[in-house]
C-alpha cells in the first residue's frame, strides 16, 4: 500500500468517524447497508475504466453501456423469463463487450480521440436503448426475484449485510488486482500509458492494448447493467445508468489513477469508490440539503485531483534537486 492509498483510507475513516460523532445513526446497520448497496455497480464499472485511464484514454459511454445492457437483458426476460442468473450476467457482459469493441475500433483504427468517440457512443448507445425496448420501462414484474435477491441478501455479520453483488464486485476487484500485478497484459498497459511511443518501439502493439482496454471497459459496463436490474428491480431507458459515467470516472481519478497515464492501483480504485459511496450517504445523514449534494461531490473530485497535482509538483522538484 502506498501513501496515496493510505491517505485515501484515512479520509474514508475520518469521514466515517466525523459523521458518527455528528449522528450516531451513521453506524446504524441499516445505514451501512445503504453505503454498501451503493458500491457494487460503481466498483464494477470503475474496474473497467481503470486500465482505460491508465492508457491515457477515457470511456464516457459507460453510463449508456450500463443502460443498454440493463434494458436489453430486461427485454430478453420478457420472452425468456426462465433464464438463469449466470446466463443473464453472461448476456449482459457480452452486450457490453461488443459495445466496448466498437468503442475500441473507432478509437484505435478510425483514430478518433477517445473523448470524442465515447461522447458520440454515449448518445448512440442511449438511442439503441430506446430502440431495444420501444421506449417502454422494464417493470419490476419482469425482473425475477432470483436476480433482485442478490442485491439484498448476502453474508450478514452483526446485522450488516454484504450483498452477493458487492462480494461479486470485490471478487472482480481482487482478480483485477492480481492481473495488474501478475499479467503480461497489464504490464503492457502500464508501459503504454507511461510512454506510448517507447512502448511501440519496444514491440508492444498499441492497437492491441487500446482495443483490449476499451473492450474490457465495455465488458464490466455490461455486467454493471445486470447489477443495475438486480439492485433496482426495474429500469427505464431514459434513466438507467444515465449520468453514471461521471461517477465512474471520478472514482477512478479520486482513486489516484493518473489521468496523464502510466500509474494507478486497483486498491486505489476500490477506495475511490468507497469514498464516493460514504460521501453520498453522509450527505443524507448530515442532512445536507439535496441542492448542495452535487456541489459537495464536485468539490471532492476537485480536491482529490488538486492533491495529486500538488504532490506531483513536489515530486518533480525532488527529482530535479
Amino acid at each position: 500500500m502506498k501513501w496515496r492509498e493510505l491517505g485515501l483510507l484515512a479520509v474514508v475513516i475520518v469521514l466515517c468517524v466525523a459523521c458518527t460523532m455528528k449522528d450516531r445513526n451513521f453506524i446504524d446497520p441499516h445505514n451501512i447497508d445503504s453505503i454498501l448497496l451503493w458500491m457494487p455497480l460503481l466498483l464494477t464499472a470503475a474496474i473497467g475504466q481503470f486500465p482505460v485511464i491508465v492508457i491515457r484514454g477515457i470511456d464516457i459511454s459507460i453510463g449508456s453501456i450500463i443502460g443498454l445492457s440493463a434494458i436489453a437483458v430486461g427485454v430478453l426476460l420478457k420472452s425468456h423469463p426462465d433464464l438463469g442468473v449466470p446466463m443473464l450476467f453472461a448476456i449482459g457482459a457480452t452486450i457490453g463487450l461488443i459495445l466496448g469493441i466498437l468503442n475500441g475500433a473507432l478509437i484505435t483504427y478510425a483514430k478518433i480521440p477517445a473523448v470524442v468517440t465515447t461522447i458520440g457512443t454515449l448518445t448512440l448507445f442511449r438511442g439503441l436503448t430506446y430502440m431495444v425496448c420501444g421506449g417502454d420501462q422494464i417493470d419490476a414484474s419482469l425482473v425475477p426475484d432470483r436476480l433482485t435477491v442478490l442485491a439484498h441478501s448476502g453474508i450478514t455479520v452483526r446485522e450488516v449485510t454484504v450483498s452477493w453483488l458487492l462480494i461479486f464486485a470485490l471478487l472482480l476487484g481482487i482478480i483485477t488486482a492480481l492481473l495488474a500485478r501478475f499479467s503480461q497484459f497489464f504490464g503492457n498497459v502500464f508501459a503504454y500509458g507511461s510512454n506510448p511511443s517507447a512502448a511501440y518501439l519496444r514491440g508492444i502493439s498499441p492497437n492491441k492494448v487500446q482495443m483490449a482496454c476499451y473492450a474490457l471497459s465495455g465488458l464490466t459496463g455490461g455486467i454493471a447493467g445486470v447489477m443495475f436490474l438486480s439492485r433496482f428491480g426495474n429500469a427505464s431507458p431514459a434513466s438507467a445508468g444515465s449520468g453514471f459515467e461521471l461517477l465512474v470516472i471520478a472514482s477512478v481519478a479520486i482513486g489516484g489513477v493518473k489521468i496523464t497515464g502510466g500509474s494507478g492501483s486497483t486498491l486505489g480504485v476500490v477506495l475511490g469508490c468507497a469514498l464516493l459511496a460514504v460521501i453520498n450517504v453522509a450527505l443524507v445523514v448530515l442532512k445536507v440539503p439535496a441542492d448542495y449534494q452535487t456541489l459537495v461531490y464536485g468539490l471532492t473530485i476537485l480536491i482529490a485531483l488538486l492533491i495529486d497535482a500538488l504532490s506531483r509538483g513536489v515530486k518533480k522538484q525532488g527529482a530535479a534537486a
Partner: protein
Amino acid sequence: MAAPALVRTENLNVELGGLPILKGIDFELRAGEVHAITGENGAGKSTLAKVIAGIYQPASGSIFLDGAAVTIKSPGDAIAKGIALIHQEPLIFPDLDVASNIFVGRMPRKATMVDHAEARRRADIILKQLGVSFDARSDVGRLSIAEQQMVELATAMSEDAIVWIFDETTASLTPKEVAELFLIIQELKAKGCAIAIVTHHLDEVFEIADTVTVLRDGTKVAERAIHDLTQPELVSLMVGREIEQQHIKSAHASPGAVMLSVENLVGPGYQGVSIEVREREIVGLAGLVGAGRTELARSLFGITHPSSGVVKVDGNAIHVKNPQHAQALGFAMVPEDRQQHGLFPNLDIGYNASATILRANSTVGWLNQGKLRQAALSILESFRTVYRNLAQPVSQLSGGNQQKTVIGRCLLQNPKLLILDEPTRGVDVGARREVHQFLRKQADDGKAILMISSDLPELLTVTDRIYVMHQGRIVGQMPTGEATEEKIMALAFGGKA
C-alpha cells in the same frame, strides 16, 4: 577485418513525407566491428539507423541479416531479430521500476504469471555487469539521463542483441559517462557483436570506431578504415555540397551601430557566450545540432533565462522577461520547428501572416479585418508567396511558402532584430533563394539579423559574419569572406580552424 557482414543493405532508398532521405545506400556492418556512421546535419545518419531498427520502412532496396534477405517489419520485429537501437533520448517508462523497464513486454513468467522476483534477479545480474549504482527496484523516473541510458543498454543486453546501433547516444552524457559507455562498447565488440555508432563527434569516431561510413545528402560518399584516415580528410568527405549561388552582398560598405550585444552569457545549454549583431548586418551562427545555438536564441527571446552575463540592446543592459517583452524590445523570432512553434496550421493564411499585429490593429478588442488583410496581402506580396487566397488553410501551402508566411508575419512587427532558426529547412531551392534575397533586403533597410543555420552553403551565401558554436561555447568567428565549409566544420566538430 574480413569478418562476414551481420547486417548489409543493398541499394537502400528511404523516403519520408515524399522526400528522398536515403538514396541507394550500400552499407555493411560486420561482427566484432565498431562502425561509425557520420555526416553533416541532415545527411541521413539517423534515418539509416532507424531503417535497420524497423522504425522506418525502405521505399526500395534490401536488407540482409546474416546473409539472408529480411524485412524488418516493426521495432518489435527488429528486437526479435537481435537488433537493438539505443536512442539519443533514452526510451524509458518513468512510472515503472528498472526491472519492468528492462523486461517491458516480455517479463519472465512462472506458469502464466509474471515473475517479478525473477525479473529483478536477472536485471540485477545485468546491472552488475554494467557496474551501475542503482538496482532493479529503483524508480526510473528519478534516474539521471546517463543512468536511464544504462537502463536502455541493460534492456538490449537482456534481449541478447547482436547488432547494436547507438544513435547519438553520447549527446546527453558527460565525458566521464562517455568513457564508461565506450568501455561497454569495447566489451560488446570483444563478444563479437556488430556495433554501429551514429555520431557527428569526430573525436569519438577516431577514439572508438574501426570503420567509418560518411553520408552526405542521403548518399554514401565513402567507407574507410579509420587508420587510413586523418581528421581533416574526414571533414572534407563530409562537407563539399555545391554552393548554389553567389554571396549576396550588402548594399552598404559597412554595418551600422551595435544593436545587440551579449557578454559572457551563461544559461541552459550554453556558457560564456559573447556575440554582437549590428544594424544592417546578417550574422550567422553555425554549429552542430546540440551545440547550444537554439538554446541561446530561446534565451535571447525570453523563453528561457540566462543565469549570468549581460544582454545589451542599443547599449542598454536589459533582462528579457518573456517573449512579449522581447517583442516590445523590437525582437522577432522565426522558430526552428515551423509546425510546432511557428504556424497555426488549421487557420487561414491571412491570420497566419498577420497574427503578430492583431493588437496593433484592433480597437477595444475588435480586430480591424480590413487593415489586417491589407498588411497580410502586402507582406505576402513582397515575399512573392504563392497561394490561392487568404482564406486558404496555411497547412495547404508548400514548405517554402509556409516559411515565407512565418517570416513575413515577424517582419510585420517591424522588428529591429530578427532571429531566425534554420529558416530554410525543408524549403525548396527556388524559395530559398527568395528568402535569402529578402533577408538581405531587410538588413539593407537597417535590421539586425541573427541567423542560425546548419546549412553551410546558406551561411556562406547570405551572412556577413559567422560565429561557430561547439558544446555550448563560441569557438570561433570570422567574416564570411574568409570562411570556408572546412573551416567552419572543423570548428564545429571541436577542432581548430
